[in-house]
């Protein structure tokens, strides 16, 4: 291996340039924005470049800056900062311009008209992700990296708050559904919270059991593996007759709303899926603990309970947290199914949108799911890193 750091910077060039190339292709490609005379009509597709007029040139210029900087021999710090700012500016500019195209189009074509973000816009977002991913490799300070990587999110929030996007299709779907949106969002988060909590309790217990009593390991993981493999819809289908029967026989279940459809099967299915990653990581963490450390703790007179609570769990925590992170991301995406079986949540918008081919309504459900998943993923990754650093001071 030749000078790893230097070659890493050189390699980032290729990635940044391909990000810029994708960005330019997306700006010139036909499906940048989709204009419709009403929310479910077949749309007329326009390229971002032609829709934005002079700002289209600015969009392409952003990508040109990224490409030229990547190929230049400018100082790494400058390449990193300016490159990622230009890459981050491109989708923000596109979104802002899409907002003003939407405002003009609705004025001209009437209030029923819709402007949706097309494939070209989403490819611009992907290009920005690729280019920023490459450009931040040129930056040493993680604070600067964080600022340039998350800056575009702040800019989008500002655009939303300013009202510049209020004519855009997805924002109008939100405005029409604001009350329902808050309710379904809360419900979605509740599904994730309850099922991951149940998964955490069961996963810790089963993972610990498998680590302490190796004879139980094949049984525990064999059973969890079966649950993991069941298709979501078929799993809910299998529960349907059982839960329907239970709610008929036991009044208490019926009173709290346990039915074949609704929240009950969703919570059961999501909890079952959440157990596996947590149990697997708990088991892996506990079997890899140094016996010497535990012996030492026992040697200074600690009982089994305090060894577990004060030595073993803290040492295993980062690995268990990684499992918890997987479970959280999975449940956030998985809870979409509740919308299909009368359980509510953000999936409601997705399935309603799917039946009407209203992409903006689908996105109103999907984007918050993706944002939540990302927030859980990044948030817990930060906690894992912090825990690991705190345990092993460099």
């Amino acid at each position, binding site marked *: 291996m030749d000078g790893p750091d230097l070659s890493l910077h050189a*390699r*980032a*060039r*290729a*990635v940044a340039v*391909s990000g810029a190339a994708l960005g330019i292709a997306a700006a010139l490609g036909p*499906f940048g924005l*989709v204009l419709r005379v009403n929310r479910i009509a077949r*749309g007329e597709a326009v390229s971002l470049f032609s829709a934005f007029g002079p700002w289209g040139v600015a969009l392409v210029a952003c990508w040109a800056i990224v490409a030229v900087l990547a190929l230049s021999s400018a100082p790494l710090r400058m390449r990193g900062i300016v490159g990622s700012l230009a890459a981050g500016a491109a989708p923000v500019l596109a979104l802002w311009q899409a907002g003003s195209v939407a405002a003009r189009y609705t004025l001209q074509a009437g209030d029923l008209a819709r402007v949706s973000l097309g*494939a070209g816009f989403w490819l611009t977002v992907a290009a920005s*992700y*690729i280019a920023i*991913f*490459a450009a931040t490799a040129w930056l040493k300070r993680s604070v600067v990296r964080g600022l340039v990587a998350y800056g575009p999110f702040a800019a989008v929030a500002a655009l939303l708050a300013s009202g510049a996007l209020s004519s855009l299709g997805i924002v109008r779907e939100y405005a029409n559904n604001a009350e329902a949106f808050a309710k379904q969002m809360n419900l979605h988060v509740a599904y994730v919270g309850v099922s991951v909590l149940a998964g955490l309790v069961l996963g810790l217990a089963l993972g610990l059991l498998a680590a302490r009593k190796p004879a139980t*390991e*094949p049984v525990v*993981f*064999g059973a969890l*593996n*079966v649950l993991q*493999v*069941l*298709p*979501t*819809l*078929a*799993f809910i*289908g*299998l529960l*349907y*007759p059982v839960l*329907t029967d239970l709610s008929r026989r036991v009044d208490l279940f019926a009173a709290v709303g346990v039915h*074949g*459809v609704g929240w009950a099967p969703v919570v059961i299915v999501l909890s079952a899926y959440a157990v596996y990653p947590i149990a697997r990581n708990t088991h892996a963490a506990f079997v890899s603990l140094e016996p010497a450390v535990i012996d030492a703790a026992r040697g200074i007179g600690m009982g089994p309970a305090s060894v577990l609570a004060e030595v073993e769990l803290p040492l295993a925590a980062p690995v268990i947290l990684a499992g918890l992170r997987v479970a959280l*991301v*999975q449940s*956030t*995406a*998985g809870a*979409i*199914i509740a919308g*299909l*079986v009368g359980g509510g949540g953000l*999936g409601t918008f*997705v*399935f309603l*949108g*799917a039946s009407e*081919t209203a*992409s903006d309504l*689908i*996105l109103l*459900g*999907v984007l918050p*799911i*993706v944002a939540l*998943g*990302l927030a859980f*993923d990044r948030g817990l990754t930060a906690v894992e890193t912090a825990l690991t650093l705190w345990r092993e001071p460099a």
Partner: protein
Amino acid sequence: MPSEQTRQRVVRWAGIAVLGAATAWMTLDARGFERLLKALAPHESSWLYPTKPLVTLMAEQVWLATAASLLAFVAGGLLGALALTRFGIAFRDLVLSAASLAQTVPTVALMALLVPLTGYGPEPVIVALTLYSVLPIALNVIAGIESVPPEVRDAATGIGMGRLQRLVRVELPLAMPVIMGGVKNVVVINVSAATLGAVVAAGGLGMPILAGFHDYNDAYILEGALPAIALALLLDRALTVRPRWDVR
């Protein structure tokens, strides 16, 4: 320990045989399966989903998963191999990062979003499942080839193998368990997720399940759910290279 290993192998193959027989029986013996559904849901007045016979639904399910998996093997294999070349190595970390990012997008949402481009039917499902599987395949190809010990690689070069020859004759065979692990996951996930294709009218075993939810008919739901579960478990067992708890 050989007797323990033999025992595990016998249990594994017995499981595969039972699941395979159950899947085939439910799919092929419509009358017999209807009798089972009648026993499970005696209060219904109709037990088999009327629109399509189960054998067609099963064929659609298998076709959706097979088409998506094959496309993903080719694309993911190429992407993984590309990410290991001198030029492509720069994209390695990007593939890793994008693969974890893709987890946050629900499969069925991607299917629904593709409908304006592809129309309703099998196309959005095949495209969505393929897009989903490409990165995990690439990831396993990268992880598998990187797991080959450097000594082995050096030895291969030492006896005069070229890069391509080393890849085909040494690295790929050694990486196979890891790659096959990824292949198994992708196939099992695809055959499971294909059930959701019913949402965009792609056919498959999800059709009777959704119809059952719609009409409150337990029998339709079970008609789709039982074979879907048997098929997923069968593939999971059949494609397992080694039992999970065997690997230390």
